[in-house]
């Protein structure tokens, strides 16, 4: 009872005011650095001051084209460093004990052997997890195809699968990541067919154990609830029938390849969403994608990730029509969204909270850094988002869920560290000779926040730069310039706008 109340409560986070007319029609207004930075934040991970200049120097259509028709990424590393495993067995393989299992009376030596072997395996697995995450973060940072990585991150949250649990170890999750990247701007019906065959997903939602005699509904349920339709668009009976259709979808233990185990497949008639026959899992997916609820579900999820929270039903319907018209081919769909009136409207601008990944990678880009420090994984953990480790199959809620005192402190402290690191490198963010405090405060807030600050904050920043109130330290000068500018950049990153995308 309370649930339906909660679910239907209007979100406090939908932008105020009316939806513009023709929200998805091409935007024809002015183009400037502010909107170019907005596009780079949403369709990528932000950019350096020169990236923003470049995009602002193009037309809006040119800037979007550059994102959609991205260059080859062949020069990037194909995968993470592979952690050595002395025994030569894959990290995902079940641990086979070399010592015999202890009997009921058990010896301490046997117990210790198990504990020791598991410890070793756990250590190697943790190192591989870390290598996986840093590999992807580095790719987000340096890829010449930021939209490809952004769509991959979206899909990772959509088909959320966590590594390091349920037998998903080693580079299982990296294989899934490549599947998502391959279809990032491709056909998402095809992607869903492939996801149903993905080894990590088969383990994660137990379909590898979904057999004729004991159907396991986990994947069948989440496929509709979280991946394609949303609650309310199917019945419990559809879940049961779908689970039967997916029986026998498993993988070969030796190679990890998908394998349709005919012997474990239930080949009786099933009735699913009004269709009756000897349906298999692929039939189920095709039936799902023919439901009007499917494009609507994808439309809502995409708008919440790329545009703003709690989008209006009429906007969802209009975007769903775009998805349906393009038959789930996402390149033209995303292309239309990034050129639309609503995307460049005031209601969309800074209307989302940056995710921890957007916050950290965007900061690296801002300062022109090209390698992600391994400690960033720990920092992301404190902020509440580690790629490949979503909290559940529901992915990350985003929005207000990113914000609490501890995660905000983690963000501020990361800003303090990265400005220190950047300051050690070069006279960052300032091309010309040191100017006066007022000009530097203006320049910094423009470079970092496109001027999205309270005039009071700029004045506060100027006071800080001039050492006002700190007595003997003196005004901004060549001597204290580096230190003060570092502090001022940190303070600018603490301003509310920097938390917003």
């Amino acid at each position: 009872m309370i649930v339906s109340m909660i679910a239907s409560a209007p979100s406090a986070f939908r932008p105020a005011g009316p939806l513009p007319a023709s929200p998805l029609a091409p935007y024809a207004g002015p183009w400037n650095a502010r909107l170019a930075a907005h596009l780079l934040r949403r369709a990528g991970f932000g950019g350096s001051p020169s990236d923003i200049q470049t995009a602002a120097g193009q037309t809006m259509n040119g800037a979007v084209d550059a994102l959609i028709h991205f260059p080859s990424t062949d020069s990037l590393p194909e995968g993470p460093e592979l952690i050595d495993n002395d025994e030569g067995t894959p990290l995902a393989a079940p641990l086979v004990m070399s010592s015999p299992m202890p009997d009921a009376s058990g010896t301490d030596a046997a117990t210790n052997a198990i504990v020791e072997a598991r410890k070793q395996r756990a250590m190697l697995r943790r190192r591989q997890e870390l290598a996986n995450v840093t590999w992807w973060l580095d790719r987000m940072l340096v890829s010449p195809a930021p939209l490809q990585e952004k769509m991959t991150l979206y899909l990772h949250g959509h088909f959320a699968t966590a590594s390091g649990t349920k037998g998903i170890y080693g580079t299982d999750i990296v294989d899934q990541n490549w599947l998502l990247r391959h279809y990032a701007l491709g056909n998402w019906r095809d992607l869903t067919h492939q996801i149903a065959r993905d080894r990590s997903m088969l383990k994660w939602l137990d379909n590898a154990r979904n057999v004729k005699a004991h159907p396991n509904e986990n994947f069948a349920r989440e496929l509709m609830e979280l991946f394609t339709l949303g609650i309310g668009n199917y019945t419990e009976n559809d879940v049961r029938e779908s689970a039967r259709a997916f029986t026998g979808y498993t993988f070969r233990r030796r190679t990890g390849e998908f394998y349709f185990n005919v012997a474990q497949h239930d080949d009786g008639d099933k009735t699913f969403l009004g269709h009756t026959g000897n349906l298999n899992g692929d039939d189920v997916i095709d039936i799902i994608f023919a439901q009007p609820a499917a494009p609507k579900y994808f439309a809502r999820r995409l708008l919440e990730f790329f545009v703003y929270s709690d989008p209006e039903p009429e906007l969802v319907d209009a975007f769903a029509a775009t998805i349906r018209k393009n038959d789930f081919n996402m390149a033209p769909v995303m292309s239309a969204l990034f050129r639309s009136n609503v995307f460049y409207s005031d209601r969309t601008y800074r209307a989302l909270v940056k995710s921890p990944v957007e916050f950290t990678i965007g900061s690296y880009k801002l300062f022109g850094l090209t390698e992600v420090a391994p400690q960033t994984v720990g920092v992301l953990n404190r902020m509440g988002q580690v790629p490949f480790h979503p909290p559940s199959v529901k992915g990350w809620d985003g929005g207000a869920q990113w914000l609490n005192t501890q995660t905000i402190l983690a963000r501020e402290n990361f800003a303090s560290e990265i400005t220190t690191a950047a300051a050690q490198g070069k006279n960052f963010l300032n091309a010309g000779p040191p100017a006066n405090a007022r000009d530097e405060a203006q320049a910094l807030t423009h470079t970092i926040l496109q001027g999205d600050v309270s005039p009071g904050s700029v004045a506060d920043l100027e006071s800080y730069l001039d050492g006002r109130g700190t007595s003997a330290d003196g005004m901004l000068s060549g001597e204290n310039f580096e230190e003060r500018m570092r502090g001022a950049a940190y303070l600018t990153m603490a301003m509310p706008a920097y938390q917003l995308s």
Partner: protein
Amino acid sequence: MQRSRFLIGALAGLTVSANATDLFAKALAMPALPNVAPGAADDRVLVVINLQGGNDGLNTVVPYGMPNYYRYRPTLGISPHDVLALDNTIGLNPQLGPLKAMYDKGQVAIVQGAGYPNPDHSHFRSTEIWQTAEPEHYVSTGWVGRFLDEADLPEANLFNAVALAPVLPAVMVGRRVDVPAIAALRGYGLSSDGNVSERAAFATVVRDDRVPFSSPYLSTVATIEDHAQRGSEELPKLIAGYSSQATYPATPLGRSLALAAQIVGSRLGTRVIYVQHGSFDTHAAQKPTQDRLLHELADAVKVFYDDLAAHGEDKRVLTMTFSEFGRRVAENGSRGTDHGEAAPMFVIGGGITGGLYGKHPSLDALDNGDATFTTDFRSVYATIVEKWFQRPTTGVLAGSFPTLPILA
């Protein structure tokens, strides 16, 4: 955002020096607390201990009088000679000695077989279910968060509830009350704290007035930044006056409960404190891990209540444990146990009626190898909301659940 503007106003015209910052902090250190008599319903505190990873209930509250227990637990079964018997069927794990001492004084209630229908065996999902109290739906608020929202707490208090955890757990998420997440006092703060001018500037630049854009998240961001900055500066000062003779175990849980006692004793108006302990995910070689964790639990809780009692605070603090699931009844081939279903909960405090509640799950009729729940965990939540906090469960729990006579 009123508060932020007030602060900026207070700072304007001040020469910001180390002294001024101190003065400023002192001005803030006068918490606007409701005037509540100790022991009144409004003054009560709940401590929630999350036993993360799925604690093996059968080896915590041991059904040593059920023959099937030893059949399913050939190597992990705890001998009748070792259990700390509560009656002729049920006993406690020998590592829980300090808790047994509290049980004997009537300060511990054990709710046997707590769980919910159609249990989920995933850590994530089952944790979420226990935290949101919603087994059948995905909701974004926790039951404590909803309780805080409904409880008419003073908005100005930054510490209406605290989560002693690195990330705000779902159970503490509400729609109105912002609960600070604090991993440990050390490290809870801005790393620029040594730099006086930077810190002073931080308080002023975090403002949302007259920004040239509108965002539905703007005031939320500004509020939380303000709370994080002020709260992390204030908290150490607010609790500095509390002194204690207690020696807490040098474990993460010991440190958390020491901080919890300090927060309770400093009377910050805090109503709920969340702490976590684990990991109990003992798929292999369970005994050494679970023994250590249970020992740490009992030890820390006993010191916590002794400490509270020494400060006259023990009767206004209720502690509840939960874990996302119990474990399989039959041990596996690695001297461990896999994910299961029902498990006991502890409710601890100076003002309760201790004893065994509910029925121990049957070990004769298993549900696919799992113990079936006998008490819905939401009955325990309902008992806490209605009897401890003396509030209705409307808006907190979906549906109505019978309360247990743990509390009068």
